[in-house]
């Protein structure tokens, strides 16, 4: 299994509070991604990174920011959580941009109350 860890695995937070999710990899892959999964929508790309300090927006980036200060860590921040951000968040890594060998973490279930 690819070395990719998400933390926390579960989190409940209140509306308006900041939340940071962490993705850590031990594979030294260049590309890292944050997705959210909601019923009826499959997975949707929030942000991705193509190197340290290099990030770009995905399909549903509003309300989210990311940072990548080290190759192994990719952080997703909700500056002020809203109920619409209740979702399951997945981090993924790949050696080549959006290639078939994207490995996913186990997911973080975030509930905003």
């Amino acid at each position, binding site marked *: 299994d690819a070395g990719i860890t998400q933390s926390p695995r579960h989190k409940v937070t209140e509306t308006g509070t900041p939340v940071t999710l962490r993705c850590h990899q031990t594979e030294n892959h260049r590309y890292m991604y944050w997705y959210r999964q909601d*019923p*009826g*929508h*499959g*997975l*949707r*790309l929030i942000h991705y990174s193509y190197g340290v300090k290099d990030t770009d927006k*995905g*399909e549903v980036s509003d309300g989210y920011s990311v940072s990548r200060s080290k190759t192994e860590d990719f952080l997703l921040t909700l500056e002020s959580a809203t109920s619409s951000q209740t979702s399951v968040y*997945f981090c*993924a890594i790949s050696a080549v*941009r*959006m290639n*078939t*060998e*994207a*490995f*996913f*973490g*186990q*997911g973080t279930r975030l509930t905003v109350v």
Partner: protein
Amino acid sequence: DQQVKQNSPSLSVQEGRISILNCDYTNSMFDYFLWYKKYPAEGPTFLISISSIKDKNEDGRFTVFLNKSAKHLSLHIVPSQPGDSAVYFCASRDSNYQLIWGAGTKLIIKP
């Protein structure tokens, strides 16, 4: 407007029979198509893929068929096994190298 659609939310198949999962897309510029499998409480895992220049790709019990004129792809699993019970997502790669995902089909293999 969903560009990748999996119209069957669930599918139930007898063990040993063929499972056929379907996926339709709208964007003719998609150049690569993938199937991922997901178990509960786990992340998706890559299963099989196909380039737009091909119409079939086979890997063991799994075969993906691509019909570009119909903008349709399907995943065949033969024979179906209990461990195949999972949610299957199809995904298509667009010109920006982003993956557009379907909503998934839950496959249930009955013993």
